[in-house]
């Protein structure tokens, strides 16, 4: 019943889904392709989907670490937020040497139903905007 997605097949399925009416969905083709989604109702927030093996990762960029006034305080609050934040977590990735980026992300099985992937995208976008609102004062 469940299909194992890859980036290309998931992109095609998303284009044919109801999400296409509320977002701009692009395939960023490269050696490891990713899907770029801009959600109209969420201020064109870019959400990325990548499929690796058995895992789908949905993520959006919050802000760079250099923009956080007090990183220790922010990190602690993000960690406290993670357990109560449904479906998404806050994480940190290295954008380039010396450039850390905070992201909101959620992970799903690569054999998840399309509807679950779409829900994850919407919830992630919602959580990202919530976070932007909640942490606004802590940013430079």
């Amino acid at each position, binding site marked *: 019943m469940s299909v194992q997605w890859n980036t290309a097949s998931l992109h095609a399925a998303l284009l044919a889904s109801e999400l296409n009416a509320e977002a701009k969905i692009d395939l960023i083709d*490269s050696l490891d392709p990713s899907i770029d989604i801009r959600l109209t109702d*969420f201020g064109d927030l870019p959400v990325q989907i990548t499929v690796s093996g058995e*895992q789908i990762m949905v993520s959006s960029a919050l*802000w760079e670490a250099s923009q956080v006034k007090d990183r220790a305080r922010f990190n602690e609050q993000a960690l406290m937020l993670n357990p109560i934040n449904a479906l998404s977590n806050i994480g940190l990735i290295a*954008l380039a040497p010396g450039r850390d980026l905070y992201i909101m992300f959620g*992970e799903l099985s690569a054999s998840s139903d399309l509807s679950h992937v779409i829900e994850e995208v919407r919830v992630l976008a919602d959580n990202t905007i919530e*976070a*932007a609102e909640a942490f606004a004062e802590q940013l430079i």
Partner: protein
Amino acid sequence: MWSKIFTMFRGAAHQAGEAVIDANALRILDQEIRDASTALRKSRDDLTTMMAQRKLTFDKLGPKQRKIAEYGGYIEQLLSKGDEALALEVAQKLSELEGDAAQDEQLLGQYDANIDSLKKSIIQAESSIGRLKQQVDAVKATENVQRAQAAIASRHSGSNTALRTATDSLERIKQKQAERSAKFDAAKQIENLGGDQDLKSRLASAGLLEDSSSASAVLARFKARPALAAPTQDAPRQLGSEASTPGTSA
């Protein structure tokens, strides 16, 4: 596994390149998967050997047990015939056979226990390989996210401008909301205006509301004031003479 990655985090923090973390994590995971699958292969080989040995032992035990039954029969017959000497000779043979069979049975018990524990460790190794592969997927997914974000960073804001995607989007949402509520207010005003006019015109057509600017209303107003009737009749003339005044003075 986690402690190895954390050790690596500490190491990588001293180097400038933090992207090294992913490469290192993948190397560690790769090694762990290799180790686990080597162990798995060995467990499977051991299991095959163990099961073959068990079968050999089991196959030898059958004839021995048949021989034990056979010799037991001889002893009974010899004893009933009173040939105790020969019965003793057979009994010696039987005791050797019984000892041998008992040893085989003990061996079989050991094989079974080993086979059980090998099967368990095979299941364990398989699931730990599955878990390690999931971690590889997670690290690779993170790598992809990093690449995708870096691509967005360079595409949208130049590589030196900080990415503030979430706050930018929040600003856009707020702006849209402000625009929308302004539009809504304007629409509401127009609607009120329109509603009012519509009501007035409907009241007027129902004869309930007099339109003060209509010609009939103006006429009615003048008719109600008969004293002013004469001056109004002169008015055209006066207006006419006034109109000529600029011409005469010029």
